[in-house]
């Protein structure tokens, strides 16, 4: 198991290196010069050139790449071109919104999906199953930004229960902050919950068909007992994968939702940085997201091992 994890770690770090190269090169070919963007349309060309030198944009490509990677390894992400503050500071601020939002959405999605999936699987082909399946089909089909718009229309503009967006900051109090994240989290969670409920259902149905479920029933466990004691943990394994994937997806995929609710999160930071050609921020955010995905993948592997003793000893 440890050897397996070590090997995974090695291959994941290779992915990270490849990712850093890809992202660096992509950002190099993106048209648009950060310096001229910052100086605006009436800028003096000399001033733009001075700024380019100051930002280190004149150095040759490999030097800049290595400089960036070396910085990353020391935890130094560099200085944002446009904000002129350390990127790590910017990211740290944004993570404080994106991460809670992601966890909130994930928690909502899990809280909705688990009972729904279990209900549907245990009463297969019943009216409850059909309703859950129908609802999840709809949930997957709704574009989350559209759903977000509708949520704003109904709950912020018409009912005024929530503000239409923005984030008061964690200083404003936990409840205020959570309240500000509620509509975005719902918008994010809906499709994820639908997917998760479907996975939960089909995984559980597969498990319910396993031989050991019959063994459990033959021992005298009732249907419900067998489900709780024997099926759930086994069914959880594919569900864990999906939760892991969803975490990464939500962390990065909040871009549009963050835009709709003007939340200053990571996705919006990256989106703005792309439009402002703040290359260093884009690079750092993307590599961080890739890193997060890799860490989560690794954690999911660990979770597998916890859920499934077969993996603790051997794994090919």
């Amino acid at each position: 198991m440890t050897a397996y994890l070590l090997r995974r770690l090695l291959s994941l770090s290779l992915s990270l290196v490849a990712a850093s190269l890809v992202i660096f090169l992509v950002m190099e070919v993106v048209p648009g010069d950060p310096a001229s963007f910052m100086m605006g349309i009436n800028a003096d060309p000399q001033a733009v050139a001075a700024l380019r030198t100051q930002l280190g944009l004149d150095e040759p490509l490999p030097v800049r790449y290595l400089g960036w990677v070396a910085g990353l390894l020391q935890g130094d992400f560099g200085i944002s071109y446009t904000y002129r503050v350390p990127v790590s500071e910017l990211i740290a601020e944004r993570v404080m919104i994106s991460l809670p939002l992601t966890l909130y959405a994930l928690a909502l999605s899990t809280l909705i999906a688990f009972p729904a999936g279990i209900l549907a699987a245990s009463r297969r082909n019943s009216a409850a199953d059909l309703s859950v399946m129908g609802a999840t089909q709809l949930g997957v089909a709704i574009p989350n930004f559209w759903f977000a718009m509708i949520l704003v229309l109904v709950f912020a503009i018409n009912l005024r229960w929530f503000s239409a967006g923005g984030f008061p900051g964690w200083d404003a109090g936990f409840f205020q902050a959570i309240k500000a994240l509620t509509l975005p989290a719902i918008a994010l969670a809906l499709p994820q919950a639908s997917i998760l409920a479907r996975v939960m259902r089909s995984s559980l149905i597969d498990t319910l068909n396993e031989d050991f479920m019959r063994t459990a029933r033959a021992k005298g466990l009732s249907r419900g007992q067998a489900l709780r004691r024997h099926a759930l943990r086994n069914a959880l394994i594919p569900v864990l994968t999906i939760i892991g994937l969803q975490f990464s997806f939500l962390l990065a995929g909040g871009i549009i939702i963050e835009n709709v609710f003007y939340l200053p999160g990571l996705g919006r930071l990256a989106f703005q940085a792309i439009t402002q050609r703040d290359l260093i921020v884009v690079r750092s955010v993307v590599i961080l997201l890739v890193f997060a995905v890799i860490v989560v993948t690794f954690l999911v592997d660990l979770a597998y091992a916890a859920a499934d003793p077969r993996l603790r000893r051997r794994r090919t």
Partner: protein
Amino acid sequence: MTTASPDRSFLRAALGHPAFVIGLVLSALFIALALVSFVWTPFDPTKLSIANKLKTPTFEHWFGTDHFGRDMFSMIMVGARVSIAVAFVAVGIGMLIGVPLGLYAAARRGSLVDEIIMRGNDLAFAFPSLLLAIMITAVFGPGAVNAIIAIGIFNVPVFARLARGAALSLWTRDFVLAARVAGKTKARISAEHILPNIANLLIVQGTIQFSLAILAEAALAYVGLGAQPPLPSWGRMLADAQTLISLAPHMALFPGFAIIITVLGLNLMGDGLRDLFDPKLRRGR
């Protein structure tokens, strides 16, 4: 043991599968709308009529008009064409590149090429897809073609992985061993035995990816990176509607419904196909 050909019994089973039939009808509806839009739309979807703007649905304008007074129904018809074309081509690209890669990796399991393909796949999955799509359009400029590329790229690993996984299990099947005993090359076995037997799986996944691609196209268009005006696009219609949502909610509702219904239709069809193709479920029926 039936004497009818398998195709006919499949058709009969398909028509008896409610989810499949609903899905087929819904998707067919929008594909029909898209096709009809080539020859007829109630109004010219690019024709502005500022005086007529933001009209709620009337008998004349079934879905109302937008902020330029264009007919929403006509725009949705033409938008269907754009969404469907972009999604179809993007998924097609993903399949055409991904499936051969996956088959190759499976045939040469454990080889360096397999390793590279799979690691490349991991990498593509690890990348935040929407961000990368945004960057791709930032590089090449926005437009339908680049949206296709951005979406297509992320379909490649999906199909590569699916094809590899399915092919790997087929490679251990006795009939493939028999073909190897018959001296057939790996390429030939892949084409003759593996591909036809994973085709069902690919069709099902293709349907699902198709619906995901429609959502992705809408998201890209929503942030302004899809098809460019004056060509209508569902995602951009939603973006246009956003600031007007309290004034003219119909501008947001109809394109939203169009997306939902199309995606729903495709997903139901995909799920239906999965059931129909699954011999376990078919036998039970």
